């Protein structure tokens, strides 16, 4: 009978009208500024550089300016310049650090390829999305100081992921020390056999010149 479909349609809109007053499934608007959005843990926006401690961010940057992320970044929006000198990193081994590390957030599309290819877990994805700048060129180009955020912040936004990364880094550090100690012990053993007349007294963790800790094999993909 002509009109049956029309009445059915009216019934559906009526059901939704009534439903919107009592059934939360039929009233889905979240009024953004008042109601903050609940972001899933995996949410990612622009990257940030991880520094071990909050008080000295530039000193404890994990990044060693290996420029893998600069090469792999699809839109080429990362710009790194190596430092001339070296500074000891978390494990005490002198590493190069980035003198200039700039990400042009006007070009970056937050695809997290840089996080994926970084062998040192030095760059992670942030969750802060309300970013505004007044100037298109300088304003959106975040330099090293603006990008660095402490590991504690990383734990705050990506708890499970941060925990895994820290566990792995701790394990590597332990392995590195274990190897360093073994190397030191192996070097110290022949001297013990020879008369102990050597002047040099083994320092606590002398930099092992010979068995340099092989740079950790780049783990292909960390979640």
């Amino acid at each position, binding site marked *: 009978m002509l009109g049956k479909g029309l009445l059915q349609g009216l019934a559906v809109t009526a059901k939704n009208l009534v439903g919107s007053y009592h059934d939360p499934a039929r009233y889905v608007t979240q009024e953004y500024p008042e109601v903050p959005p609940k972001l899933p843990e995996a949410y990612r926006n622009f990257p940030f550089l991880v520094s071990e401690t909050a008080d000295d961010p530039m000193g404890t940057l994990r990044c060693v300016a290996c420029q893998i992320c600069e090469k792999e970044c699809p839109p080429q929006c990362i*710009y790194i310049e190596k430092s001339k000198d070296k500074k000891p990193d978390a494990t005490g081994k002198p590493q190069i650090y980035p003198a200039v590390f700039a990400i042009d957030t006007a*070009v970056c599309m937050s695809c997290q390829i840089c996080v994926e290819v970084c062998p040192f877990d030095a760059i992670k994805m942030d969750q802060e999305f309300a970013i505004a700048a007044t100037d298109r*060129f*300088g304003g959106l180009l975040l330099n090293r100081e603006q990008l660095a955020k402490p590991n504690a912040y990383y734990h705050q936004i990506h708890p499970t992921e941060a925990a895994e990364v820290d566990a792995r880094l701790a394990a590597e550090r332990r392995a590195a020390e274990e190897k360093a100690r073994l190397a030191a012990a192996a070097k110290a053993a022949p001297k013990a056999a020879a008369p102990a007349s050597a002047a040099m007294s083994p320092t606590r963790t002398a930099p092992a010149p010979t068995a340099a800790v092989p740079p950790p094999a780049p783990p292909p993909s960390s979640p």
Partner: protein
Amino acid sequence: METPEALRDRLLARFPGASIELVPNGSPSAQVSFRIGPAALREVACFLRDDAELALDQCSNVTGLDVPDREVVETVKESQPGAPGGPPVVTERKQTRLQPGHLEVVYHLYSVARRQGPVILRARTGNRTDAVTLPSLTPVWRSCEFQEREVFDLFGVVFEGHPDLRRILMWDAFVGHPMRKDYVEPDDYEWEPTPHGDVLAKARRHYPSAAAPGAVQPSP
């Protein structure tokens, strides 16, 4: 579906005059293709579409390829007469030869009726400058209409017999074919000067303001 070799022999038997050859494919996908001389391209295509056993009624994909001129370094063995009565002296000389490039169009054909494919056809143009016409397959499969226009627009292959050969993605007044390997981007092309690397250098030339104090100065 019959093996590529059997199909090539059938085609050669069917079209004695045409030049039909198999092009091997190094990747594990082993999708072998047939390079067909432009002269017989449309007849072969019609045959492939109407043949009962093949029934390739869908041309799924038309792709343009640009193979630029290549410097080929060859070692040429020359034999000069050696000392009298002695063996000739063989000298090897490296000689660079310029292999002329060409434009190529690849057709991926499938059969919807018999659920088989792909059979891949390739056609080469004479060279990359003046002899760039190929017969259009739009009269055989209408799916080639837009895709051939795109190959014309981005590569510059002129399809003879196409009902409406115009640029499809670029605006009509656009000069040049962007997908060619030797395409040079116009310098003053309006773009977003990101202040680093060569882009910064280009920015300095065109947008002095971009090098304003605010932008990061690469350290000396």
